[in-house]
């Protein structure tokens, strides 16, 4: 049975991919889907409950919550993909070098991984953000720069086992150079597990971004993000439940969607890996 047959049988994975695709579509067509301008302040209509005009209610400045969330999904996706992209890039390069060359290079890189893993990542991010100005670019960079360790270990492990395989020896015997062997022979065979790790990484990055924005050191108002809508919601939770409920639900669903998708891909790639 191949990948797709197994994947299609996995209902949870299909549900996950549906959520992922849905949020993708929403963020791409944000300008068309949002009923109002997300920054449009209407002080006549503050903290209005969900209604026909404002399906998810309004916030403390009378802005439409649905529109803000639709635009906020762009932030989540951007941060999720960009920071995971950074993490994967670093992880592939370091993991490939460590696994392929071994020796002291390997020891050095793996000790760097161990050191990075010693820091409680979230507090490291907090500390760094305290020095930098909180912007979406800094958030992407910092989440990416603190999230590469797992992927490095994964890639290294794959490279260590793959480099001993006979097809790699055969490539060496025909005179292929290290770069060709690493990128053309080994990496494509390691891509499957990298893809799975990336999917989980995106979920984690979205969660971290929301948390940072919730704490006020992430995406800065007035730019809408799910996290900073939640912050506003927390102050009014007794009179305007919709202000915290819907962004929370959106975060929950997205993270769930990516995790289900990741697990689905992992299980379909190799049923033996299920754990």
């Amino acid at each position, binding site marked *: 049975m191949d990948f797709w047959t197994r994947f299609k049988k996995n209902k949870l994975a299909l549900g996950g991919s549906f959520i992922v695709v849905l949020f993708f579509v929403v963020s791409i067509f944000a300008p068309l889907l949002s009923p109002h301008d997300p920054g449009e302040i209407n002080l006549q209509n503050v903290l209005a409950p969900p209604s026909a005009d404002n399906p998810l209610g309004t916030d403390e400045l009378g802005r439409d919550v649905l529109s803000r969330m639709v635009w906020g999904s762009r932030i989540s996706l951007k941060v999720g993909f960009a920071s995971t992209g950074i993490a994967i890039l670093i992880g592939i390069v370091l993991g490939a070098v460590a696994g392929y060359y071994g020796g002291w290079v390997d020891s050095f890189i793996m000790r760097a991984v161990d050191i990075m893993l010693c820091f409680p990542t979230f507090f490291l991010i907090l500390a760094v953000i305290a020095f930098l100005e909180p912007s979406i670019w800094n958030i992407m960079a910092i989440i990416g720069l603190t999230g590469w360790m797992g992927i490095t270990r994964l890639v290294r492990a794959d490279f260590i086992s793959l480099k001993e*395989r*006979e097809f790699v*020896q*055969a490539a060496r*015997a*025909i*005179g*292929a150079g290290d770069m060709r062997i690493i990128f053309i022979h080994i990496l494509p*065979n390691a891509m499957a597990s990298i893809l799975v790790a990336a999917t989980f990484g995106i979920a984690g990055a979205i969660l971290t971004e929301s948390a940072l924005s919730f704490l006020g050191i992430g995406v800065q108002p007035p730019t809408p993000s799910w996290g900073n809508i939640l912050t506003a919601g927390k102050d009014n939770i007794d009179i305007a439940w919709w202000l915290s409920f819907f962004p929370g639900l959106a975060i929950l669903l997205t993270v769930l969607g990516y995790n289900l998708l990741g697990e689905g891909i992992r299980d379909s790639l190799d049923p033996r890996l299920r754990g």
Partner: protein
Amino acid sequence: MKIGAYEDSGSARTLLSVECLKKYFESRSGFLSRQVRLVRAVDGVNLRVFKGETLGLVGESGSGKSTLGRVVIRLEEPTEGRILFDGRDVHRLPKEDMRSFRRDVQIVFQDPYASLNPRKSAENIIGEPLTVQRICDGRERRERVVRLMEVVGLTPDQMRRYPHEFSGGQRQRIGIARAIATNPKLIIADEPVSALDVSVQAQILNLLKDLQRDHNLTYIFISHDLRVVENMSDRIAVMYLGKIVEVAECGMLCGEPLHPYTQALFSALPVMKPGERKERIILEGDVPSPVNPQAGCPFHPRCRYRIRVCETQVPALTRTGKGRSVACHLIGNDASGQGEEERGAVI
């Protein structure tokens, strides 16, 4: 045939010569242990391969025959000794000559399931040597791949398929096509049929023979299967614990093995004629570990003819007759003195 003429081995006929080759692997016994143990995979091998011949290399698993092959093709660096290909030291070739060495010497692996990259199509696998060696690219490469596929008995319309879509025998054909893509002079066939069904084995062996005839190839044919080696080889070298114990022309070695180990090996072959009986030499014990080799002849703990000198001195590979060398104290006149380092005992 080709045998016989190399008797007075003019170096012109020698394609490859292995001199006092040793390959030791280090193995650490524990995580923090300083104690390094040496695994003597190849332990002082002298060997010549002549142009156009097939040299069979037999031995049981762990005898170092595959390691020898991998050092010859420079997938491993030797610990000691050297290998001359066309008169030049393989492991000291400058970069440009290394490129042409990679063109001239190729390898066919044992496991056709592991030796082909699962993510590349047959076309890319067979054509890769042409790209890497900058021989040709694009449409010209495709044409050569088509020709190569025809030569090894595959149909060119299969070239977009991936390895998992082929059978074991077909995959081995792909592996062979890759090996001959650069028109090599020497091919190391490392147990090329051991992973295949007997019926498919015969096809692949015939293919290898045809290719040898048509392309003037030289083979080092590594196998543990005596019948296959007997069928393929002009000369046979028998390895035991990293050393060569006997080298002779195929008919000679199979007809009348001299070294006690070779005798035991051949006595293990089942008798094909009904009614015929032959003595079975049962070897006692296992192959000793190559980690801590004992003194003397590597075979002496299991040898039924051993004498005292066998326990203390390593017998040198000594020429005993026309095209034949044996490393045994009981054979030939040379029971005294010559150490294994002796360089004269080539063949």
